[in-house]
């Protein structure tokens, strides 16, 4: 096993070997969900705090289930109940939690670098569950676990990521992990949601139109469009977005015959993806969710299941 880090903050700095070992490890944890008793004692007596400064039911639940299946004590702390609303600084909040001696902090925050800041502050291990538009490493890794159920994830594979790239941590974490493994990544977004200079990243192909991005592609990853962004003059209307960038059956026909369709959720049906595609045979969206638990178990185990130096 080659994962010797204190924290999992992103996929950007992970080596191919580290990514592969996380994926392999996740494979071993999948089976636990099928057992009559879905619980192993690996993290008995460990405390996992889900520190969510931004609401997220899915990711938090996934981490919570993962922690509990490992027998860890999982505690949820969300922004609405936190002292942040009382004007306490992030570091003060974190110092307080650290004083209660947790073993692992799972951090979701709406600002870039929050997990990094916390990781440098505390002795507990930190898993970044999303920091602003920066990284969401466990999402990318579970996407890779899902892809590898259908494809060989490596050179020769082509993945199209379509949607609001600029504001997407899912896109970024996937870009880093996929390009590190030698996968060809095509990016497609309205120019208003496409960061300048993204084309400087090696292994990345920027496509103007979804038709171009989808052509013969093996994996289609649609991103959630945040409807509130409309106010920021980024696209004219939801209708217009769906028309130009939404994934429908006709567009999906451009992809390889055995292409799979992914979406990190929650979906806006009829906006970035039609129900026909989302519920179709090529969608692996719910497998992503199942694999999320296994992958997060693997991550929590690797970080928390070992002794302290």
């Amino acid at each position: 096993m080659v994962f010797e880090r204190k924290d999992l903050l992103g996929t950007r700095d992970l080596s191919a070997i580290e990514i592969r070992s996380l994926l392999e490890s996740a494979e071993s944890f999948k089976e636990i969900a099928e057992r009559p008793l879905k619980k192993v004692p690996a993290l008995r007596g460990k405390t996992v705090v889900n520190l969510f400064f931004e609401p997220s039911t899915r990711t938090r639940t996934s981490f919570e289930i993962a922690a509990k299946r490992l027998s860890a004590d999982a505690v949820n702390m969300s922004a609405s109940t936190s002292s942040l609303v009382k004007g306490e600084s992030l570091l003060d909040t974190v110092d307080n939690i650290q004083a209660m001696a947790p073993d692992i902090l799972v951090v979701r925050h709406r600002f870039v670098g929050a997990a990094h800041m916390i990781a440098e502050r505390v002795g507990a291990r930190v898993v970044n569950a999303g920091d602003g538009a920066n990284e969401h490493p466990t999402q990318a890794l579970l996407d890779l676990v899902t892809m590898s159920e259908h494809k060989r994830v490596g050179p020769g594979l082509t993945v199209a990521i379509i949607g609001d790239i600029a504001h997407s941590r899912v896109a970024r974490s996937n870009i880093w992990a996929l390009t590190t493994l030698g996968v060809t990544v095509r990016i497609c977004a309205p120019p208003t949601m496409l960061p300048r200079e993204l084309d400087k990243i090696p292994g990345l192909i920027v496509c103007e139109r979804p038709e171009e991005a989808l052509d013969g592609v093996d994996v289609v990853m649609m991103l959630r469009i945040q409807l509130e962004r409309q106010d920021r003059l980024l696209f004219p209307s939801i209708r217009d977005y769906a028309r130009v960038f939404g994934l429908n059956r006709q567009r999906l026909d451009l992809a390889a015959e055995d292409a799979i369709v992914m979406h990190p959720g929650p979906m806006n049906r009829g906006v970035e993806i039609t129900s026909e595609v989302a519920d179709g045979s090529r969608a692996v969206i719910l497998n992503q969710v199942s694999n999320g638990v296994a992958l997060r178990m693997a991550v929590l185990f690797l970080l928390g299941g070992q002794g302290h130096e």
Partner: protein
Amino acid sequence: MSSNASLLLKNVRLIDAGQNRDEKNLDIFLRDGKVAEIGSSLNLPADQVFDLNGAWVMPGAIDLHVHLREPGFEHKETILSGAEAAVAGGFTSIACMANTNPVNDSAAITRFILEQAASAPAKVLPVAAISKGMAGQELVEMGDLAAAGAAAFSDDGKTVANSKLLRHALEYASIFNKPLLCHCQDNDLFAGGVIHEGMISAAHGLAGIPTLAEDVDIARTIMLAEYLKVGVHICHLSTATGVRLVRSAKARGVKVTAEATPHHLFLDERAVVDLAYSEDLDEHVRPQQLRYNTATKMSPPLRAAEDVTALREGLADGTIDAIATDHAPHEATEKAVEYELAPFGVVGLETAVALGLRLVTEKVLTPLTLAARLSLAPAAILGLDDRGSLTIGKAADLMIIDPQREWVVDPGKFRSKAGNTPFAGWRLPGRVVKTIVDGRIVFNL
């Protein structure tokens, strides 16, 4: 505050752009707060005599752009602590911006600043706001402020978005011979931005501030000055396009001047994700957090490497007239927050001259052009006739530099109340060892 005492500085290398003079083995005699005599082997009776053993003597540095935070934000800096930091860094005059609380938009505030500054070791030159409350709506009473001692006008920290108001400010200020210092920024293009829009913002999901936000406003400001045939000064130039705009305006004869900060001359956007990207930082004082360190957050932001190159070229060829620090102190806890929440601004008074010496060792500037950028040009921009040069008869404001005295930037040792510098841990090639204002030694290392 001038001194009646006399001081003889022996065996110095005088570097003074005002006299276009870079000569070794000189003695300088200061009396009654003025430069009284310059020559070799001066044998004049003096109250104090220093054999400086070849150290450099340059006119005191003049900073066109500092934030002293008083009144209103004394926890960040005070006029006194800021002036202490200034002289420790070789600055003998500092122009302090108006974005205090209350804003320096009335003669009463200007007088308050001057009163507070009376006991300060450096000359403090209050810059008054352009608009009342810096709200961009109505002009301040420029005549009254000029009479009270305002050295210049600026809404720095904000742009004057209303072009008609900016036009009237330029026209009206010109009769008092006080410069307008323009913070150029298109608010809509800037809005929400945190770091330079480029490679790093793309990769790390931080909202970008495009160079465009600065460039379109520099173009507008230059066009106004050109049309009105008045002078204007552009603050903290940070982009290659900005340099080009100023260069071509100067070639056309527009009376535009510009400044650049040391941080924009030394650091690019990569510092946001790795403060140690360009330097082998001293391990004892290097910051623990090298990624997303809020000491790299300022406005305008650290730009791309091409912009740094263009700024250095502009500084060398005189397109950029002055080095100014944009010294913007913040309390440690204010900066110890999420990157996106942190306030903009870094301190600079105690590192700027030493970084200037580094520009000399890197052959960007000669000692003489460094003296021009640090002293002569800023004095000219502010219309300080008796400062910025060490011609006989001018104020004895000077700094003594040991060009061989390497040191490590340690924010813990700053005299400023704040330590928010992106240069912590840098090894700099030389150091200001004495600062003299009006013939008085105000800093002695």
